[in-house]
C-alpha cells in the first residue's frame, strides 16, 4: 500500500512551527528560571527531527540533530545550562525555521547564519563538559560502569485501554527480545471473573527480567516510548553492587514511588566506595532518569502543560483551534433553533388568525436564537490576543541585546479575545510600536540611573475590552515624547505654522505624519522601514484609531483602539435611486434635511453646507457612482453627515431606511476591489447591498475634483 505522505505535510509544518514556538518560549523561560521547560524544549526538537526525517527534510534533520544532542545533554544534567548556550539555541530555532522553509520549497538553504550557528553548536558540543555537576556525572558514569551482564527488572503495568490505542504488548516484548534475553512473568491477579471480562480491556501486567551486557536503560525506555502514557513502567537495575550507605539527601525530591526507588545521587566518596563493592550480592537499585520519576503520570502532566502554550503560540494560522466549550454551546444553540423552527413550521401547517400571538412569540424566540447563534459563531473567530503578543518576549530579548538596554516586558490581558483577521493585521503595527518604545522610549541604563529610575526599563503591553472594541496599550517608562522637538520638527518640515498653538494631543498626532522622525539618529532597529504613518494607516484600515499619551520623564503610552470584529458592522441603510447602500453607523455624525439657507456654493461650484460652525462639503452619491437618483437637488435633500479622520462630508441620499447589523462579504473573492465600496452584504430579502467605504469615497471625490480642476485650467488655457 502506498501512502501519500504529502497529505500529512501541512500537519507536519503546522506542528513544526508550533514546536519551534514552544522551543522559543521555553528557552526564554529557561533564562529566567530553571524549570522543567528543558524537557518540553527537547520534546519539541525531537518531534521536529522525527517528522523532518519522515518527510525527507534532510537539512532540518541534520541541523536539529545537533540541537537535540545539546539539549539532551542539558536535559540529563550532563551540561550546565549556560546563557551562551541558550543564545545559540535561540539562534538555532531561527535557523530551523529557515531550513524548514527551504526544505519545503526543495531548495538548499545557503544562508550563512546557518553554517555559523552550526559551527557554534558543534563548538559547544565539543567543549568538554568539565563544569557538570559532580553528582550528575556520578550518575551517568555509574550507568556506564556497571556494564557487565546487567539485569534489569521491568514492571510493566499497562492501563486497561492500552490495546485500544493500537498497541500490543507482544510487539513490545518482541522488541525487548531483540535487545536481550528475557524472562517474563505475567501477572494475572487483576483478571476478573470470566463473565465480567470486558474483551477490549487489558487486565494483565508483566514482570520482565532482562539480562544483557550492552542494553542501557535508554534502550529499554525507547521500546516503551510509545506506550509510556498508557502504562505504569518501573525499570529497576539489578546490579551486583550494593549501595553501601545511601545518603538520602536532597535528591529524594519528587519521588512518588515507594522505597523501591532509591536515589543514586551519592557523593563522590560514596561513588568510590560503591565501585569497590562491585562484588557484593545482587540488590535492586533504581536507576532514575528524567525527573527521578518513572511512573508516567507526571510526564503526561508535563505534556498537558506543553499543549496549552502550543495552542496559544501560533501566529498566522490558516486554521483555528476552538475550545470544546464553544462548540458545545453552538450545538446547544442549534438544537434550540431546530426546536423553534419545528414549532414555527407546525404553526404554519394550519394557520388561522387566532394563532397570531403564538406566531409573534415564536418569531421573537427565533430572533433570540439567531442572535445568540450569531454571537457564538463570531466567538469562534475570536482568539486570545496572546497569539499576537507571543512574539514579543523574543523581540524584547533581541532588542535588549541589540540596544544594550535592560528591558523588561510585562504583558497584561493576554486572554482578551479578538477577531482572527484583526489579529493577523495588527501584529506588524504592534511590533513597530514596541520597537519604537524599546529604541526611542526607553533610555540607556546610564541616563535612567542618572534620572533616579531603576536601571531596568519596562515595556508593558495591555489589552482590554471597552464596549464593542478592544484597546491595546503599548506603554514604556522611558523618557516620554519631547513635545518641543516634535513641534520644531513639524515647523521645520512645514507641516505646522510656526506660531500655531497646539494641544498636546495635536502635537503627538504629528508623529503619524508621513516622513516624520524625531530620532536624531536612525538606528538598526527603528527609524527605517515602515513609519508611524503606516502604523496609523494600518490601524485605520482596520477601522481603528491610535492615540498617544506621554509625560516627559515618565514615559509614553500608545493606545490602539480596534473594533472587535471585521465580519459584522452596524449600518444605516440608505436608498439612492433604486439601489440600497449601507453607511457604517460608526462614521455617521448626524442625518438631517438640508435647509436652503444653509447651502453655500463656493470656489467654483463646490457645495458647502453650514453645520453649526463647520462648513461641510456635500457629496452627492449619485454623482460619485453615476446613478440615476430621485433627488438631485441639494435643497431639502437628505444629508448624512459622516466623518473620517477629522474630515466631515455630507452624503446626499434619497431616503433613510432601517438601521441593522450586517455581515460583511468581500467583493474581492469573486470580483475585485471597487473604489468607494468596502464590501457587500445580504439584506433580509436576499438581495445584495453595497457597504460604503467613507475614506475611499472621500479620496474618490478628491480625485474627481482634481480632474475637474485640471480640465478647468486646461479650458482656460485654451480660451487664452
Amino acid at each position, binding site marked *: *500500500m*502506498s*501512502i*501519500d*505522505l504529502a*497529505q*500529512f505535510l501541512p*500537519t*507536519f509544518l503546522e506542528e513544526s512551527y508550533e514546536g519551534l514556538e514552544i522551543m522559543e518560549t521555553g528557552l526564554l523561560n529557561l533564562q529566567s528560571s530553571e524549570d522543567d521547560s528543558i524537557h518540553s524544549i527537547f520534546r519539541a526538537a525531537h518531534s521536529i527531527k*522525527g*517528522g523532518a526525517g*519522515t518527510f525527507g527534510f534532510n537539512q532540518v534533520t541534520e541541523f536539529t540533530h545537533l540541537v537535540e544532542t545539546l539539549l539532551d545533554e542539558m536535559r540529563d544534567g550532563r551540561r550546565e545550562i549556560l546563557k551562551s548556550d541558550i543564545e545559540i539555541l535561540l539562534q538555532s530555532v531561527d535557523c530551523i525555521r529557515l531550513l524548514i522553509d527551504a526544505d519545503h520549497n526543495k531548495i538548499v538553504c545557503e544562508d550563512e547564519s546557518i553554517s555559523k550557528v552550526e559551527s557554534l553548536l558543534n563548538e559547544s558540543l565539543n567543549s568538554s563538559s568539565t563544569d557538570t555537576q559532580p553528582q550528575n556525572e556520578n550518575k551517568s558514569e555509574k550507568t556506564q560502569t556497571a556494564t557487565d551482564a546487567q539485569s534489569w527488572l521491568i514492571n510493566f503495568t499497562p492501563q486497561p485501554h492500552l490495546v485500544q490505542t*493500537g498497541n500490543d504488548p507482544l510487539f513490545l516484548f518482541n522488541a525487548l527480545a531483540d535487545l536481550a534475553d528475557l524472562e517474563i512473568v505475567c501477572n494475572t491477579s487483576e483478571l476478573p471473573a470470566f463473565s465480567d471480562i470486558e474483551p477490549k480491556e487489558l487486565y494483565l501486567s508483566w514482570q520482565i527480567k532482562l539480562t544483557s551486557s550492552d542494553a542501557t536503560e535508554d534502550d529499554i525506555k525507547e521500546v516503551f516510548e*510509545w506506550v509510556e502514557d498508557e502504562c505504569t513502567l518501573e525499570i529497576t537495575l539489578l546490579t551486583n553492587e550494593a549501595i553501601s550507605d545511601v545518603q538520602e539527601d536532597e535528591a529524594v525530591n519528587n519521588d512518588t514511588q515507594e522505597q523501591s526507588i532509591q536515589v543514586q545521587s551519592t557523593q563522590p566518596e560514596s561513588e568510590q566506595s560503591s565501585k569497590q563493592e562491585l562484588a557484593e550480592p545482587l540488590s535492586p537499585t533504581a536507576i532514575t532518569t528524567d525527573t527521578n520519576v518513572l511512573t508516567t503520570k507526571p510526564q503526561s502532566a508535563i505534556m498537558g502543560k506543553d499543549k496549552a502554550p502550543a495552542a496559544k503560540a501560533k501566529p498566522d494560522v490558516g486554521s483555528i483551534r476552538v475550545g470544546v466549550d464553544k462548540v458545545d454551546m453552538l450545538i446547544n444553540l442549534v438544537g434550540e433553533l431546530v426546536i423553534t423552527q419545528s414549532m414555527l413550521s407546525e404553526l404554519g401547517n394550519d394557520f388561522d388568525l387566532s394563532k397570531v400571538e403564538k406566531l409573534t412569540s415564536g418569531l421573537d424566540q427565533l430572533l433570540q436564537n439567531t442572535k445568540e447563534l450569531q454571537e457564538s459563531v463570531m466567538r469562534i473567530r475570536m482568539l486570545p490576543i496572546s497569539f499576537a503578543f507571543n512574539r514579543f518576549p523574543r523581540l524584547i530579548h533581541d532588542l535588549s541585546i541589540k540596544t544594550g538596554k535592560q528591558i523588561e516586558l510585562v504583558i497584561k490581558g493576554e486572554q482578551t479575545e479578538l477577531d482572527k483577521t484583526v489579529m493577523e493585521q495588527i501584529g506588524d503595527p504592534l511590533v513597530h510600536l514596541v520597537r519604537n518604545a524599546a529604541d526611542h522610549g526607553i533610555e540607556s541604563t546610564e541616563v535612567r540611573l542618572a534620572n533616579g529610575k531603576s536601571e531596568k526599563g519596562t515595556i508593558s503591553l495591555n489589552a482590554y475590552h471597552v464596549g464593542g472594541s478592544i484597546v491595546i496599550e503599548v506603554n514604556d517608562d522611558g523618557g516620554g515624547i519631547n513635545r518641543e522637538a516634535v513641534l520644531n520638527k513639524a515647523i521645520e518640515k512645514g507641516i505646522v505654522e510656526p506660531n500655531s498653538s497646539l494641544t498636546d494631543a495635536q502635537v503627538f498626532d504629528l508623529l503619524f505624519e508621513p516622513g516624520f522622525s524625531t530620532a536624531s539618529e536612525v538606528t538598526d532597529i527603528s527609524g527605517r522601514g515602515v513609519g508611524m504613518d503606516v502604523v496609523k494607516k494600518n490601524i485605520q484600515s482596520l477601522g481603528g484609531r491610535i492615540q498617544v499619551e506621554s509625560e516627559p520623564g515618565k514615559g509614553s503610552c500608545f493606545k490602539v483602539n480596534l473594533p472587535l470584529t471585521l465580519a459584522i458592522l452596524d449600518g444605516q441603510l440608505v436608498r439612492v435611486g433604486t*439601489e*440600497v447602500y449601507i453607511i457604517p453607523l460608526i462614521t455617521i455624525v448626524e442625518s438631517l434635511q438640508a435647509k436652503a439657507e444653509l447651502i453655500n456654493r463656493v470656489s467654483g461650484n463646490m457645495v458647502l453646507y453650514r453645520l453649526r460652525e463647520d462648513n461641510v462639503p456635500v457629496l452627492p452619491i449619485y454623482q*460619485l*457612482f*453615476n*446613478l440615476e437618483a430621485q433627488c438631485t437637488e441639494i435643497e431639502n435633500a437628505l444629508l448624512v453627515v459622516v466623518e473620517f479622520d477629522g474630515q466631515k462630508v455630507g452624503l446626499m441620499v434619497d431616503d433613510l431606511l432601517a438601521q441593522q447589523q450586517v455581515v460583511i*462579504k*468581500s*467583493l474581492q*473573492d*469573486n*470580483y*475585485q476591489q*471597487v*473604489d*468607494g*465600496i468596502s464590501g*457587500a452584504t*445580504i439584506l433580509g430579502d*436576499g*438581495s*445584495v*447591498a*453595497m457597504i460604503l467605504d467613507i475614506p475611499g469615497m472621500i479620496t474618490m471625490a478628491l480625485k474627481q475634483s482634481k480632474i475637474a480642476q485640471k480640465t478647468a485650467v486646461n479650458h482656460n488655457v485654451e480660451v487664452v
Partner: protein
Amino acid sequence: MDIQSLAKDIPAQGEQSLEGIEFINNAEQYLTFVLGNEQFAIDILCVEEIRNWERPTQIPNSPNYVKGVINMRGIIVPIIDLRMKFGIGQCTYTVTTVVVVLTIEVEHKSKVIGFVVDAVSDVLNAEADDIKKAPAFGGSIPPEFITGLVNQDNNVVTLLTPEALYKIEKHQIDGCNQ
C-alpha cells in the same frame, strides 16, 4: 510516528477504482449555450449552476457589461453579460435569459462568476480530435479565449476557455478603470 501511524490507518488515495462507470465515454462534455445566433460551449465541469435572470445589485462605476452582483446562497457573485462583452446579439432580458454560473480555478483560488447568455441548449460530447483550431482571423472575440471549434450537425460551436474568461474580465475591468 504519530503521522506514520495515522497514515497506516488511512487507505492510500485513489485506491477505490472507478470501476462501473466506464460506460461514460472518454469524450469531454460541454454545456452549449446561445448568444445571439451563435452557439458557444464551455467545459461542463466548470458549471456551478444555471439560474434565471434576476436583477443584480449594481456595482458603482463598473464597465457596462458588468451587470452587478447577486446573492447565490450567501456568496456574492458578479454577473457579466457575455453578449455585451463579445458584442453579439441584443442585450435584452427576457424570461429565457439565463445566467450560467461558473467556478473558475485561478491560481489555486476558485472564483465564482455568473455569465448572462440568451439560453442554454444542450450538452455536447466532444473528443479531443473533434476540436478544430479556430481560424486566426475572426470576429469580435479575441482568439486566446477560444479553445477551438466543434462541428455539430450543420452548426459550428465555439468552445470557450473558462480561465481566459476570468482573465479577460479582469483585464478589461482594469483597463476601464484606467
